[in-house]
């Protein structure tokens, strides 16, 4: 499964103040998920020492799929020029498109709209704690879905 995590919820899954839903997402990542990182979002997420430390080990473990920063920037520019975006997070959509992510963890409602726009992300799903940070069945159901396209050799 492939996911993207937004900077606005990073503290819910990484650090000393994890929320139940954030912890659920993180445990899913550690056990069976994959996180796509690259471009500007990677730089933002790497500001968190907890995340950066995790990313190092998770990359070695095959949990993190790094996408070329330049490719993300180019795609972002294309999106800004031609796509109907509700959010100002073209870099997140660009990353999800290039990395094949279909699950977004974010509390940005404008970005939610973009991620659910089938023209931008095919069958995109959103994991959010806007309605509460407890780990609900709706969260669990999302983490049971296959969100990452298969590629040669798995992943």
């Amino acid at each position, binding site marked *: 499964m492939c996911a993207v995590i937004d900077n606005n919820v990073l503290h819910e899954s990484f650090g000393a103040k994890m929320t139940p839903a954030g912890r659920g997402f993180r445990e899913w990542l*550690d056990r*069976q998920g994959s996180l796509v990182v690259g471009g500007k979002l990677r730089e933002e997420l790497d500001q968190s020492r907890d995340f950066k430390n995790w990313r190092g080990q998770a*990359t*070695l*473990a*095959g949990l993190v799929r790094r*996408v070329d920063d330049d490719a993300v920037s180019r795609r972002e520019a294309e999106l800004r020029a031609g796509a109907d975006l509700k959010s100002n997070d073209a870099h997140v959509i660009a990353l999800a498109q290039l990395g094949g992510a279909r699950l977004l963890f974010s509390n940005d409602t404008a970005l939610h709209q973009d991620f659910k726009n089938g023209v931008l992300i095919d069958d995109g799903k959103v994991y959010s704690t806007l309605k509460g940070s407890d780990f609900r069945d709706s969260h669990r159901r999302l983490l049971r879905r296959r969100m990452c396209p298969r590629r040669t*050799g798995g992943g």
Partner: protein
Amino acid sequence: MRFRTLGAADMQAMQEMWVENYRCFRERQTARLAPLTLLVGDNSTGKTSFLAMARALHDVQSLGQLPDFKDEPYDLGSFDEIAHHRSGVAGRASTFAGGLQAGRKRAGYDTSSFDMVFQRDGPSPSPQRIRLASGSTWLSWHFDAAELRAGIGEKQWTSSTSSPRHLANDFDRDDRRLRLGWWLVSDILWRDDLTWKPARNADAPPSTSELARLRIAAAQLRPITAGHSGRPFAAAPVRTKPRRTYDPSSYGRDAEGTYVPMLLADLSARAPERWGSLRGALAKFGSESGLFDEINVKALGKRETEPFQLQVRKYSGRTKGPWRNLIDVGYGVSQALPILTELFRDDSPSMFLLQQPEVHLHPSAQAALGTLFCQIAAGGTQLLVETHSDHLMDRIRMDVRDGTTKLKPGDVSILYFERRNLDVRIHSIEVDAMGNIVGAPEGYRRFFMEEVERSLR
């Protein structure tokens, strides 16, 4: 069909290896080998056994030698310790096998393969069958039946010969003059007394053209790892302890690198150019890894027969520190020295089987070793490295990602050895151009993430 042709530029490296009913491997386990292959997994999951089989197959196919499964650093014991033991009524396997595929796949050329089945002969393993193949053409020698079998496509034949003693099942394992592998099959194929019979999908002995094709195949199947000079260097997981003073003696390669101080002393006294080159390479790595900046052989007398010491020193900027005896610096230096020396010497073999080369090294030196392995493998030497070092693996991954090595993503293979009940499975994992680990099974993720998960509790 075109057969492989051998040339200096066409380096023959092992591309794939498989084992079956061997040690902890019950089902056939096939592993992708690359110029740089990393073997990872928990303790006692067969990584060292895998290296032992790699050397055994190399010994037979490239050198024609009967493999010695007790030869250091891989003392696997007798047949009973080597053949897989199945639980319950299945008991111990009656045979075990290994095989390899070598050569570069190029358009229009067939990949060559070699495999061997071993059976019990008293307490020791003895060859039961060897088989060579190129594309759809193959030849196999069956020791018990003293029979050569051959096939081209669907057609198969058998042939018998007035079997000399050493070709039958009373094969004399102590006779080191005998050459197995290609030499044996090729020798039999050219015998005048060979009597062919049709077997599967053939109604007559091989025609003149078919026999010629088999002989051409045999000729061109000549040691499929022939590009590899000599026996692979197989390092022990723990290298020899340093000594304050060494007495000159004769030397030959051994797994613990006991000979290395004498080799260095010999080169420094008799071959200054070679010593200068080796010394420079050692110092370069020493500097990059933070271990030392210079290495020296200090003679304690004027004659070569007198004792000597090994010394290293570090620099601080332009200031050179004092020479210190090898025994007075961190253990990591003496543990790494045998492997570094073998990697850098000008007559080094072109295949290395290394067990935990990182022992006693600081994480930054472990990482530097990763960069060195990339450089060595990019130069045409095949490395199979059993490691428990995240730092070493991570450096290799990053060097490939950042293009600081000539190694391409496909030139690195990670083999993850995963225990499942009483058996072990081998997973071949790749590194892509972004340094991502591709194809990691769940067990591999757990292997690296358990401590991280624990920190969440």
